[in-house]
């Protein structure tokens, strides 16, 4: 099993979520985060005091998927999260050692 984490543009969330649903992903966790890669932040001014704001708002999503689904999930995020401009984000794939469903106690593939 793999944990797939993706940092994407906030306005791409709906499109990516629908695509993942079509590919067979059953569950998702979504967080509002701030970050930067190659994308520059911006400047803010309050009564003459200038602040360089380095961070840009992003969405981070996480999905635990069975190995068989990983390639299609990654492709879906790549296709629907891309705008072609700097700031599109990244995908991280982690090895997942154990997954349990809290309600029933089911483990691993059965819990996905």
């Amino acid at each position: 099993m793999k944990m797939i984490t993706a940092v994407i543009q906030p306005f791409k969330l709906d499109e990516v979520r629908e695509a993942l649903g079509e590919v067979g992903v059953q569950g998702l966790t979504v967080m509002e985060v701030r970050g930067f890669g190659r994308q520059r932040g911006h400047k803010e001014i309050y009564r003459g005091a200038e602040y360089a704001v380095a961070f840009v708002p992003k969405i981070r999503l996480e999905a635990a998927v069975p190995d068989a689904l990983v390639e299609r999930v990654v492709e879906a995020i790549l296709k629907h999260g891309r705008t072609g401009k700097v700031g599109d984000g990244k995908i991280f794939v982690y090895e997942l050692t154990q997954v349990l469903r809290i309600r029933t106690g089911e483990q691993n593939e059965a819990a996905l």
Partner: protein
Amino acid sequence: MVNQLTRFAAVGLLLLAAQLTPAQTPSTEAPASAASASAPEAPAAAEATAASAATPPAASTSEPSLILNSQINSGDTAWMLASMALVLMMTVPGLALFYGGMVRKKNILATLMQSFAITCLITILWYVAGYSLAFTPGTPWIGGLSRLFMDGVIYVKDVAAVAATKDAPAVAAVVGKVSVSHLGVTIPETVYSMFQLTFAIITPALICGAFAERMKFSAMLWFMGVWSLIVYAPIAHWMWEPTGWGAAAGVLDFAGGTVVHINAGIAALACALVLGKRVGYPREPMPPHNLVLTVIGASLLWVGWFGFNAGSAVAADGRAGMAMAVTQIATAAAALAWMFTEWLVKGKPSVLGIASGAVAGLVAITPASGFVMPTPSVFIGVAAGVVCFFAATSLKRALGYDDSLDAFGVHCVGGIVGALLTGVFASTALDGGVTGSLLTQLKAVAATVVYGFVVSYIILKAIDLTIGLRVSEEEEREGLDVSLHGEHVE
């Protein structure tokens, strides 16, 4: 005071015994109707009331006095009742939100608490001593104690008959009468004193902008309480009490350019210097956490300010109307002036900028509002907008003090701009208008700045030596909401 209580008790018992309804209908022609209304009454009572009604009291113009209820002007009173509420709204929640939105989220509750607590504290102190010290004749430097605990501020309903008891003469002397201030002879003294209270409330609340995010709540309460009695009350007395040295010298301060804004602003500077900079200032970013609140606050200030300026006419008349008009025009001019200046100098017109510009305009037009015509008010607004922009940005950065929310930069500087321009633009064309003197205005500004700064400094030092002014660095890092009040906003 004991005699007064006896009087009240006597009247109270009379009212209960007679199961009264008011004997007189309100009228602006006091003497004739008073005499005729009381004519059919029981002989002894008629004698007592007729004797006092036959010669209607003329309100004194030098000290508070008693007049007939029927001599009160209901239009003026209605407007002043509304003005009191408008100016109170300027502090809660106007100023509270204006400042609250500008601080970091971890300090917002503490900032709101300052305005709210000051409102409550100053109310009590004003009732106890502030009103008397400010608005009774006394000396040219400070008022007397005749209105301590608002003693003598009374309203006594009319009664159909004053029972022939040994107290009858004393009771008859106040029946159907209300006290008025010499500064507002057509409205009840209760209304005048409470209207002035709202000014006494907002002045210390303005100072909070200078020491935002780092002052102990207990120290703040002590400072504001003492300050309101030994700085605010005297300066109000100087400039507004007719025998005060400022008023007698011809200082023009219609609604509080010196008394409120320069006063609060220079005390703010003293606070910023004595308390020192916030931890991390100016390296660490400390942007406003919610300018929506600040805009709401600025808007409430603008709307409430009509009570502040037009209400200072203490009448519902043309002077109030002109004060309202020049207030609106100057404020709009100042807001645009700040906005365009910032657009030019910094590249973008900011929301915080236009709101600050509006407040600067409101401050500057305050001393001038009852003395100038519309066209000069545009000039006053523009001057305030531009000068205060540079005071709050370049000047502050150049001199390095942490006047966190620009209480000095906007209120002291804006107040000085307004006070001086009042001397330039005061017009004889206005009813009650006078010619201004730049030199007299300068004297008033200087006196306020020097006295205000020195005494504020002393009070601060005294508090610092006893209980301490600032929170610890850990408390400041954690945030005042949690450290001082045990609360937080999600």
